[in-house]
């Protein structure tokens, strides 16, 4: 869906540069660009909607080089969400949401019904929130309006630049949860920029770790965790390693390493449950899991042993 090919960009001030960057994003996939500030992740994002022009290299949407369209047409086909929302303070919530449909020349009734529908979906009842100005909303609500505005014209692609960065930690977690559950986003191809490792692992189908303008590693959560391409990636994730590992691994992943003795008497957890959630459930509860007709008993020790066994195998053979 999106293909970035050998793209480089440098600035006179020396920071935020990007060096020979190549990656592809599949339709419907969420790719997270993860890295510290100045690593070039935002630069990469801004080149995709032509807010910046690469020095060399090409970017394609579908099969089309983005240079073949005017920047305005290109941008109207992509949702764009910014850290500080960038909502227009002189427009009401509904007017803010209507901006892109208006630029696309939709008729008024269509714009209105679409704006109402998207507000409903984001749990902002239009009767209460439609005619207020952004300043009157809380940070989390503003962020949701920003998302609604980006989704208003139902663009196939969504670019998100630190979308939850300005929120306090609690709000951030709840907005993120909502974000994951939003069916409006299921079919979208999303590129999301963040410096928050936890966020990256929670939202990304694949994660692209960047440093000093280069891709360090691009892969799934488990690939990054258990098969880091270099020391940078390993150290980058070290601080939250245990939590990330538990959250990334599912019962299905460690199934072969679970002690098969004895059936379970407690709740049967689905095989896609993460180890983190399983551990949480096990505090005070009995549990088991069933996969392919096999019923396995779970407790803390069994789980940790299985995870260690999984990690050993993966680091030896490169895959489970």
């Amino acid at each position, binding site marked *: 869906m999106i293909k970035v090919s050998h793209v480089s960009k440098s600035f006179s001030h020396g920071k935020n540069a990007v060096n020979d960057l190549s990656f592809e994003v599949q339709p419907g996939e969420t790719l997270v660009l993860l890295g510290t500030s100045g690593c070039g992740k935002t630069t990469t994002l801004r080149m995709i909607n032509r807010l910046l022009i690469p020095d060399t290299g090409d970017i394609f949407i579908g099969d089309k080089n983005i240079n073949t369209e005017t*920047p*305005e047409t290109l941008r109207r086909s992509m949702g*764009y969400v910014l850290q500080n929302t*960038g909502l*227009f*303070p*002189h427009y009401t919530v509904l007017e803010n949401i209507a901006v892109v449909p208006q*630029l696309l020349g939709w008729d008024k009734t269509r714009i209105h019904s679409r704006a109402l529908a998207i507000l409903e979906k984001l749990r902002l009842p239009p009767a209460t929130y439609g005619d207020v100005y952004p300043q009157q909303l809380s940070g989390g609500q503003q962020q949701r309006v920003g998302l609604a505005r980006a989704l208003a014209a139902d663009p196939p692609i969504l670019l998100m630049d630190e979308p939850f960065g300005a929120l306090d930690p609690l709000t951030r977690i709840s907005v993120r949860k909502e974000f994951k559950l939003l069916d409006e986003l299921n079919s979208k191809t999303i590129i999301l920029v963040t410096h928050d490792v936890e966020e990256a692992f929670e939202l990304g189908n694949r994660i692209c770790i960047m440093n000093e303008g280069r891709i360090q590693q691009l892969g799934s959560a488990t690939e990054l965790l258990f098969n880091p391409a270099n020391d940078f990636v390993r150290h980058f994730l070290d601080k939250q390693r245990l939590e990330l590992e538990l959250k990334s691994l599912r019962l299905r992943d460690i199934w072969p390493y679970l002690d098969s003795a004895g059936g379970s008497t407690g709740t049967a957890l689905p095989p896609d449950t993460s180890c983190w959630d399983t551990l949480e459930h096990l505090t005070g509860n009995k549990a088991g899991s069933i996969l392919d007709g096999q019923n396995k008993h779970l407790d803390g020790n069994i789980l940790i042993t299985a995870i260690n066994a999984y990690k050993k195998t993966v680091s030896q053979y490169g895959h489970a």
Partner: protein
Amino acid sequence: MDTPETFIDFVRQQSGKLLEQTLTHTGLTFISVLIAVCIGVPAGILISRRKKLAGPVLGITGVLQTIPSIALLGFMIPLLGIGPKPAIVALFLYALLPVVRNTYTGILGVDPNITEAATGMGMNTRQLLLKVQLPLAMPVILAGIRTATVINVGVATLAAYIAAGGLGEFIFGGIALNNTNMMLAGAIPAALLAILFDWALSRLQRVNMRKARKIALVLPVILVLLSSFYLLPETYSSRLKAGFTPEFMGRKDGAVGLRNVYGLQLRTLVISDMIMYKAAYEKKLDVISGSSTDGRVKAFDLIVLKDDKHIFPPYYAAPVVRQAVLDKYPELAPALDQLSGTINDSIMTELNYRVDYLQQNPQQVARDFLVSAGLWQPARNGSKGNIRIGAKIFGDGYILANMYKMLIEGHTDLSATTKTGLGGTKIVFDALVNDQIDMYPEYTGTGLLVILQAPQTTVDSIIGDNRKVYDYVKKGFAEKYQVQWLQPIGFNNTYALMMRREQATRLHISSISDLATYVHHH
């Protein structure tokens, strides 16, 4: 002078004129602000996009702002003549800086997140400007327009100096005539206009965001409407155009007398005496109210129309000296009186011409004259005492003060110092009475009307006779102030109507009566 009793009386009597001046004033202010908005806002937008231009553009508009208003108006005369055109251009230049600067800072002040979001959503530069930048910069731009408007209400008073009308006519007339009511009748409405417009625009500035977009539409309409006030006057016209000073306009021995005694009905503009002569020379005006011995009469080849019905009081110049000084130094009076009878109107005009127009040193001019009249002697020792000679800021005074200094030093053992540039009559006379100076040259008419403020009946009975006026002031000054009038010098620096020599000859006009007849028939 029949000054009305109270301010209210004055306003009531002059209400028609006051309304006309207020409308003109409003029109002048807003027509220039309107042009400033039309040019300043696009300029501000341009420099917000091309930052390299910002420095020079803001610099130039800033420099324009620092030019003194009256000087800026002066610069406009050679380019655009007199009347509304130069006034509007000058006011426009003053209004430009606040409008350009506030547009520029307003647009740059828009949160970059918001402009980035707008661009990222696919707005082109025009949509970005109209939908985002201008609406968000509107409060700041309005603040600039507000500043420009208030500045212009103030500066527009000066438009009266170049015949563009407005409340300045009353203000400067009032100052010149020492008529407080007239001054206030111009100043109070001007202040009220400034407060009113400031308040109205501040209201616009504070309305909420939704209405901000409507303001952008309504404001131009309001500006155009207010500007159109300027087109209301200019109803009647004669073929000859007159330009009178604000002082002359209000005086009984000025425009009022011309109308009552001669029945003269001219299309009249109010104008500063600084530019009046030049305007006449450049055919912007046909008849002006000059001063008969002004050097520019000669410089611009104007002729003085004969005052055949004697409405202008005699303004014969003579030295006035404190009696105490005359008593102390008896040789002083004879020395000064040597000048009596030596200078007539045309000689004084010639001397003024050399100082004002040829830029010669007044000291040199004075010396040359004394030498040619055989009165010059080298200075003696000057050990006996010192005489302080004052003079008003006007032309005659400088030259006469220098002549007196030379006469005193050449013909007595006294020394003398000159203190020229003592403002108007009031300042120099106060200096004399309070022993700051010992003598200065004064005019009989001024002594009669301004200093002694003789009752109207007395004035009417003696005004036609030069000798009687002199005797009256001599007596009055001696009794009231212990100040002595010495012998008149000989010239009469009075008001006069003047025309270009060529035009007056062609139309066979040599007196004010001729002029009145001509105007009546054409």
